[in-house]
């Protein structure tokens, strides 16, 4: 699913100016800069392909190369995001929530797109890759500037408004991709364990994917409304401050 939702608590910690050890600050700065840089690299590639896509009228072949060209960078940065869990331990925000977020991203990258080759050229893949990229750039820029105590308002604005459209679009892209992958999974019987066996266990990857899709129904609204509440707190809180001035 879309970006991390531990932001809220991290925000509070940062606005309260909780004193971090020099090691923690150094780590955070390094981490956020690297992540921002990595994503900024993938953006120009996407822009080039997006332009190519737009120039020629929509044909399947035009975005065929997209995933393959950015896959290495994408895999690297999404797996690198495992470090985000350690990052949470350093700033002491919710490890469980971020862990779930990171795991769901890794699931999409490795267990869906990477493993199920036929769907790599689907439009739905482009859909969520785009939203992930844009959201991650805003998010990491936000963290980086915040850490350096020099946050331009428009970045804060972007970070708390873009998600309103990006989250649903990203989710649609992810769900369509998983749904598109189902026939291939069923046919190949991949990642599945069948009965009979000595320990009476079975695993059906096809059913697992369906359960994952169903899990979006309770989980996504919680995430979305959490972000909306954060938005109201951060942006609305400023309006109150202005009035007081």
């Amino acid at each position: 699913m879309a970006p991390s939702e531990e932001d809220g608590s991290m925000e509070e910690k940062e606005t309260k100016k909780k004193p971090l050890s020099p090691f923690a600050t150094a780590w955070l700065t390094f981490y956020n800069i690297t992540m921002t840089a990595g994503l900024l690299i993938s953006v120009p590639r996407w822009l080039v392909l997006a332009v190519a896509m737009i120039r020629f009228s929509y044909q399947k072949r035009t975005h065929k190369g997209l995933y393959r060209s950015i896959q290495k960078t994408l895999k690297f940065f999404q797996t690198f995001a495992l470090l985000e869990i350690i990052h949470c331990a350093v700033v002491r925000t919710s490890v469980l929530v971020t862990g779930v977020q990171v795991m769901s991203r890794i699931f999409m990258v490795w267990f869906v797109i990477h493993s199920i080759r036929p769907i790599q050229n689907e439009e739905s893949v482009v859909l969520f890759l785009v939203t992930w990229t844009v959201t991650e750039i805003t998010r990491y820029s936000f963290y980086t500037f915040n850490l350096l105590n020099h946050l331009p308002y428009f970045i804060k604005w972007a970070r708390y408004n873009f998600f309103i459209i990006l989250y649903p679009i990203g989710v649609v892209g992810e769900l369509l991709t998983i749904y598109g992958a189902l026939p291939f999974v069923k046919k190949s019987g991949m990642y599945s364990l069948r009965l009979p066996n000595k320990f009476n266990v079975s695993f059906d990857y096809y059913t697992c994917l369906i359960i994952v899709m169903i899990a979006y129904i309770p989980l996504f609204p919680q995430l979305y409304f959490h972000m909306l509440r954060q938005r109201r707190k951060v942006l609305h809180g400023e309006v109150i401050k202005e009035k007081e001035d």
Partner: protein
Amino acid sequence: WRPRPLSSRGCRSSLGGLLLQARERERVREADMKHYEVEILDARTKQKLTFLDKVEPNATIGEIKVMFHKNHTRWYPARQSIRLDPKGKSLRDEEILQNLPVGTTATLYFKDLGAQIGWVTVFLTEYAGPLLIYLLFYFRLPFIYGPKHAFTSSPHSVVHLACICHSFHYIKRLLETLFVHRFSHGTMPFRNIFKNCTYYWGFAAWLAYHINHPLYTPPAYGDKQVKIALAIFLFCQLGNFSIHVALRNLRPPGSKARRIPFPTKNPFTWLFLLVSCPNYTYEVGSWIGFTIMTQCLPVALFTLVGFVQMAIWANGKHRSYLKDFRDYPPLRTPIIPFLL
């Protein structure tokens, strides 16, 4: 020998002493009549929600909650958290107003705990599910294993035994919920019912699917394995029940008093010597028995997850025992003797 002061007992018999007594009695009566004023603010917004005047000094928090509910009908007492400090701990219902560190105009803070549901309701729902779901798989309803195996019966005796054990376990739990357990809190947050039911019902379906599957493989060591596993299972079921009864007897009806549990005449309760929460120990034991009996990995996983959760609960309980009781037996560990 020292002369006694005038205010001592010897004085009471005199007229001056009688006057003194009368004046004291009047003062005491005045104190009784001194009513408290209670204002209740929202813990988050500090907005004044209710002002209660003429509150008896010996009113309990529970009674104040009822009065608060009259003014705000959507916040029934079970979902009110009343505290002295906006970020403080919730006051217990039994606390008496005049014993609290407040003046005669008391300011209390309210936090909404959200919709609540009764523990009994939750327990009954979460246990009835696995009982019925397992039977759907045992009888092989057509939509589960396909029409070819619909309503067929397994040739393996262990499958029938497993059904009996599983059903017995959940019937026991349902009966205990109705007749044995005494709950400290009446309610829990409403959302818990979805979380809990997903866990219990989901796992029940997953393990029942495998045990009752037409391609089920019986245990590798055959009857010997099943017999030993059954013995473990029954032993632990009896143990678990004994502990529940012992815990019930620890607390007289209607009381919320906390006491240290000790071994009774029942040998199963002797585990209290080594462990704070032997009910959890026996519960894990039962499921280990069931795992060995069925030799089924989903059951093993259910046992493992259950163990982790119960270990966490046991640890919390153990800590709160240590906090509340200075003379808590030092030999006891939370759930596994000597280890955990």
